[in-house]
């Protein structure tokens, strides 16, 4: 009989099969996973930090990849002070959100009200060695600004009715014609390169320079013109110039001067003639001492600010614990002083005290003179009305008042040199004032700055205690070099102004005569330069006009003629013509699938290092 094929279960079990062991997989897995976690944590404690990290830091931060404490504070994430420690060693505060607002708007009140933004919000780390930490997405900019290039407003420099002139009388039309004639060129487009020469390193154009671009026509014999006779009483002669130790006077020879009947003339003057420049400064100091004092005060304030930053940029590595503590104490004192002054200011400005006093006067007058009492009553109502108080001065009046006060300070300092430290301090404070801003705002700003510096110093001391290495000296040196360069320039400017000393007080008529002398003295210069308030206006020929963005010409000029963006340049007759179409010309190429529309392609978030 054949065997039957089996369907289903072949036979009954003789015994129950063994049950599967519960947790047989989970327990060993959990133990292994726990061991792994312990190994990772242990590794972190002994210095194997990269396993803890969500990703490698960018290449520039590679040397601190395994030193979390350089950037992170336990339980507080990444504080801005840790970024500023290396990237803003001079405590300029240029990396803060308020610096960005000030850079964009120029309004310190708006800047002071700007929210504090963490650096790490925009600059995201741990995205790999090759990631760009500065590649901030447009959506970040769109939090406050327009969302895309289509909605980009027209450039401020074009919108403003008073576009900044480059300080010269200059018309492109005449120059293009001359260059075409002189170099036998057939089209205006060919002439651009004659003056706007490429600078390979910056991928843009060299700034226009007299010796390089103008002298061949405007100073063929080494002279830019002549100066008619001016009274010797208004100017100093060559001897006077040399006696003041002006180095550039060495290039002048006595035969270049013609003196007769109490007047001095120059048949030929060179570009940047030291005699002309010095005497223009002298005449300005005499005819408009307030403006001169204002200029000097601004330079002094800038020097003080730069010196402060230079001191703060001293590498912390060079400071011992005691020096750090000393600096912290000084900052603490300054911060508390500002707070106290703020408190005193708010008490002095209490409107209710004044109103109460007016009420007393009204009560006293009521019996004797009802009419006067009514007037006082009106005054009281006006004083107690909401929003009452002195209206801020218009900007022009503010500037005039400031120059007046600075002029008085000059006089005080001249009368008693012992008061110089005090006048210097007052001068700095007056220069720091902004039209419409009250003293409390200024003091609050100072207090906040000191507090920020103090926070940073305390953090540094904490890091010192933890044994965290200081930033590399090279990081600090770059900033220090920039500050020192700016400081040297400012000191040189101040030194040149210091040579001009005048204590005489002139009548209005005498001042007017001096101004007329200045016009004659600057006649050779004013063929091209502008004379404003007795001083030659600073020249900004062919400098970038976009203040909040950068534009590099090289990639643009290889794709199109200059005339594409600067139409009508060949017919331009005045220097303040910008001759470019504005944002529309950008949109012609910067659109989808053609050229980048990223904000960071053109815009800077942080202002540049030393202004």
């Amino acid at each position, binding site marked *: 009989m054949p065997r039957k094929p089996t369907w289903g279960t*072949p036979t009954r079990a003789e015994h129950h099969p063994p049950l599967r062991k519960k947790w047989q997989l989970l327990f060993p*897995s959990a133990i292994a*996973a726990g061991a792994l976690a312990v190994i990772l944590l242990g590794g972190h404690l002994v210095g194997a930090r*990269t*396993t*803890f*990290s969500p990703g490698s830091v960018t290449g520039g931060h590679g040397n601190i990849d395994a030193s979390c404490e350089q950037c992170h504070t336990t339980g507080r994430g990444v504080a801005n002070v840790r970024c500023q420690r290396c990237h803003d060693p001079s405590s300029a505060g240029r990396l803060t959100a308020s610096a960005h607002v000030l850079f964009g708007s120029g309004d310190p009140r708006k800047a002071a009200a700007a929210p504090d933004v963490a650096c790490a919000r925009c600059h995201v780390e741990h995205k790999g060695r090759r990631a760009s930490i500065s590649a901030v997405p447009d*959506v970040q900019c769109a*939090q406050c600004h327009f969302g895309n290039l289509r909605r980009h407003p027209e450039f401020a420099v074009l919108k403003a009715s008073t576009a900044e002139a480059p300080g010269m009388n200059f018309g492109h039309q005449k120059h293009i014609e001359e260059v075409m004639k002189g170099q036998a060129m057939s089209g205006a487009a060919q002439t651009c390169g004659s003056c706007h020469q490429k600078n390979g390193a910056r991928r843009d154009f060299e700034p226009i320079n007299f010796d390089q671009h103008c002298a061949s026509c405007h100073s063929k014999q080494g002279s830019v013109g002549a100066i008619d006779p001016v009274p010797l009483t208004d100017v100093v002669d060559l001897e006077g110039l040399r006696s003041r130790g002006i180095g550039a006077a060495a290039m002048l020879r006595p035969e270049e001067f013609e003196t007769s009947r109490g007047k001095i003339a120059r048949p030929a003057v060179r570009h940047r003639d030291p005699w002309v420049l010095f005497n223009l400064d002298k005449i300005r100091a005499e005819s408009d001492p307030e403006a001169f004092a204002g200029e000097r005060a601004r330079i002094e304030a800038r020097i003080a600010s730069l010196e402060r930053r230079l001191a703060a940029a001293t590498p912390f590595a060079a400071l011992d614990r005691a020096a750090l503590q000393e600096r912290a104490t000084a900052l603490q004192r300054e911060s508390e002083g500002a707070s106290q002054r703020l408190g005193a200011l708010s008490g002095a400005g209490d409107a209710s005290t004044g109103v109460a006093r007016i009420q007393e006067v009204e009560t006293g007058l009521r019996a004797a003179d009802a009419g006067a009492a009514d007037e006082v009553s009106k005054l009281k109502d006006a004083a107690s009305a909401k929003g009452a108080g002195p209206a801020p001065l218009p900007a022009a009046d503010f500037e005039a008042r400031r120059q007046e006060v600075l002029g008085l300070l000059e006089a005080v300092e001249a009368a008693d040199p012992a008061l110089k430290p005090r006048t210097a301090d007052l001068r700095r404070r007056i220069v720091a004032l902004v039209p419409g801003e009250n003293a409390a705002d200024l003091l609050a700003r100072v207090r906040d700055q000191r507090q920020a510096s103090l926070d940073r110093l305390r953090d540094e001391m904490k890091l010192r205690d933890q044994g965290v290495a200081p930033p590399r000296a090279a990081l600090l040196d770059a900033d220090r070099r920039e500050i020192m360069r700016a400081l040297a320039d400012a000191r040189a400017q101040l030194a040149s102004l210091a040579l001009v000393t005048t204590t005489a007080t002139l009548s209005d008529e005498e001042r007017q005569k001096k101004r007329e002398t200045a016009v004659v003295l600057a006649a050779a210069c004013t063929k091209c330069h502008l004379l404003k308030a007795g001083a030659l206006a600073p020249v900004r020929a062919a400098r970038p006009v976009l203040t909040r963005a950068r534009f590099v010409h090289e990639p643009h000029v290889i794709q199109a003629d200059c005339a594409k963006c600067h139409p009508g340049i060949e017919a331009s007759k005045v220097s303040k013509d910008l001759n470019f179409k504005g944002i529309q010309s950008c949109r012609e190429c910067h659109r989808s699938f053609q050229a980048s529309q990223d904000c960071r392609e053109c815009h800077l978030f942080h202002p540049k290092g030393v202004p």
Partner: protein
Amino acid sequence: MRPKQPLNLSIAAAAGLVMVLVYAIGAWLAPWSPKRGLGLFFGIVASLVFVFEMAYPYRRSRARPLGTARRWLQAHVYLGALAFLAVLIHTGFHWPGGFMGWALLLLSAWTTLTGLVGVWLQKWLPIVMSEGLRVEALYERIPALIEHLLKEADALVANASEVLERFYLAEVRTRLAGVEPSWSYLLDVRAGRERALEPFRRMSSFVDPAEKEIVNDLMTIRMEKMDLDVHYSLQGILRRWLIVHVPPAAVLMALLAVHILAWVLY
């Protein structure tokens, strides 16, 4: 392969869609960051779901609050898939930058993938085995059943001719002596069957008519043995796929703990 609970699939798909929409709108309105806002929220959600997923072994002893083991399984599967989506959204659909990021992402992906593969195996293999095999057997009993078949075959050839006995010893007994699992059964449960039976057909043409019945019986035993081999192979896969799912999930939890600790500390 239709889902047992289509409603749950619909709910999970809708939830996934909502999550992606939230991400799209959130990333359009503000820069996406895993460290704050919605990015952090999705990270926390994914972590909590992973912790819940690790409680799956409790489904039998303490099925509450989900009521039944089946509901727990449904939640395990769909929430696990959504948790992986939450991980991707947490990262902003960007590649990670370092060891920990990659380890967390790959382990999340691996655990989710092996879980879904497991679901598919649990659905597909029982159907394949019931449709393609005649024999059914508990995994633990298969070695005993094979031993029983061997004894039955030995008894059949005890009094057979020398030719048949030689054939049995040379070509049959060795194949009956133990379990022979094979991955090829995953592709075809009847794989190699025709080739295995060919010697029996050849042999039946050489033996006496009286012994042909023995050869046929040996052939049915061999077929039963092959069915048991298939069961052993496929049931083994059904049990062992957890090896590629559970330990990586445990490692994922360990790294997740380190990741959370790093976030809290730094």
